[in-house]
């Protein structure tokens, strides 16, 4: 029997994730137009942009949920596009992804949701799984919800359970798809704090997409602005605030563009 292919570790100095000239169209409409970005190991990159800018599509390319029309996504030196399906599944084990609404399995309770990847991919005993689930829930400041169904949780709690499930397998890369969408400002700040704490406690590389600038400045090492399928600006939060580009400034201030008012 062939041994299961193991993804190679990241060579020193190479970026954890390297995206080169990524193009993607849906029904002839281009969404990504030659997007290029690198994420260093341990970095927290936040990609901001308006609705329909291609943020979610970009994030789904990183984990191979969408195949690019052109361009490359390289994770730890392995090209996701050219990897065979088994290696692709193995590469995905390096990722933890948190979805917009949590994407928790309705048919499983909170405990089983978090235990899902552990049962599926490890040989941990029931006791070890219970310990790991408790540990993950503590990291996102939740307790006593293990036996609740996802439908019994509030929006913010569902996101946090989604985070707990994403970190259950101790991933090297965490992806967050709009972690604050639809949440009130206080819950949103709690979510940001959880992300920052997770970052402090876990040796992970993070890529977050959001349109919430406050949240972006709280959790980012580097902020990138996506517009019409390309990154128009990338900088650490303090520098990003001073970028003279009118679109970036309007976006930070939350003001409409002149062309949209016309």
């Amino acid at each position: 029997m062939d041994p299961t292919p193991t993804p190679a570790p990241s060579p020193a100095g190479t970026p954890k994730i390297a995206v080169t000239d990524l193009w993607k169209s849906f029904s002839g409409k281009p969404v990504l137009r030659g997007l290029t970005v690198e994420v260093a190991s341990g970095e927290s990159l936040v990609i901001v942009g308006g609705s329909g800018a291609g943020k979610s599509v970009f994030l789904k390319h990183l984990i191979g949920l969408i195949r690019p029309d052109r361009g490359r996504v390289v994770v730890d030196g392995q090209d996701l596009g050219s990897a065979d399906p088994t290696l692709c599944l193995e590469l995905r084990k390096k990722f933890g992804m948190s979805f917009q609404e949590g994407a928790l399995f309705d048919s499983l309770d909170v405990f089983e949701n978090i235990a899902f990847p552990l049962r599926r991919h490890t040989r941990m005993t029931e006791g070890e799984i219970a310990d790991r689930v408790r540990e993950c829930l503590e990291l996102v400041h939740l307790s006593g919800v293990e036996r609740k169904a996802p439908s019994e949780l509030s929006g913010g709690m569902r996101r946090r359970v989604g985070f707990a499930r994403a970190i259950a397998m101790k991933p090297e890369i965490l992806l967050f798809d709009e972690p604050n969408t639809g949440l009130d400002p206080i819950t949103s700040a709690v979510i940001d704090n959880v992300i920052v704490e997770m970052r402090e406690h876990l040796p992970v590389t993070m890529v977050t997409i959001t349109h919430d600038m406050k949240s972006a400045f709280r959790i980012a090492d580097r902020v990138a602005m996506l517009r019409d399928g390309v990154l128009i600006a990338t900088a650490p939060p303090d520098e990003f605030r001073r970028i003279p580009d009118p679109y970036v400034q309007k976006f930070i201030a939350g003001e409409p563009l002149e062309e949209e008012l016309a």
Partner: protein
Amino acid sequence: MSSSARLLQTARATLDGVGVRTVALFEEAGRFFYILYQTGYWLFRRPFDGRQWLRQMVRVGVDSIPVVGLTAMFTGMVMALQTYRGFERFHAEAYVGSVVSLSLTRELAPVLAALMIAGRIGSSLAAELGSMRVTEQIDALYAMATEPIHYLIVPRVAATTLMLPPLVACADGLGIFGGYAVAVGLMDANPVVYWEKTFQYLDLNDVFSGLIKAAAFGLILSVTGCTKGFFTGGGAEGVGRSTTAAVVMASLVILISDFFLTKLLF
């Protein structure tokens, strides 16, 4: 616009319509066979999720006994009623038992059970997988390095294919019993003669071919339901569309394939 130009325009529009529908039909067939192939590919791969298989078998099999049983029993009853009245006209009442048992085992029990299960399970498979698709739960499975076809579709298709034959066997028994109860209880048929005639012309082959048909129908309806659900798009409205389409398509394919299976098996 001249009449010939108008005619040309109408012809072009008609051809366009035919083309679009043909492409859609091939696309639909392609998706069905893709899911069928992938289900076969992942069927014996590890990890084997026994709990899921069992849960689905209970859902498809045990939970469907009342609806399939009632359908079969009343079908047997109405068949006895109808054939008795008809056969009475040429003094062939004795053969009512044979007609009821043969038509039930060979045709009615498998087809009616499959149609009931298409309504009950085919629709719920499409709705369940469809809502998992639109709420990104299927993407979450991929993200957790789990193949959704392996985790979601294999147990559902296997359970439906495996549980349809025992359900149809129950339906056979209950249908024959329903026919007996009506013929003997309402029409004053001789119970000994009725019982004897019920089994006189019934071959084991009749029963087994009915059960083989049942398994084929189970495979068809579950793959149709799963395909419709798996490829759902367009939010809640899309889930509604997939659910309806799953039942309509599964029912049609069951009825069409019934002819070919019958031709093949008998």
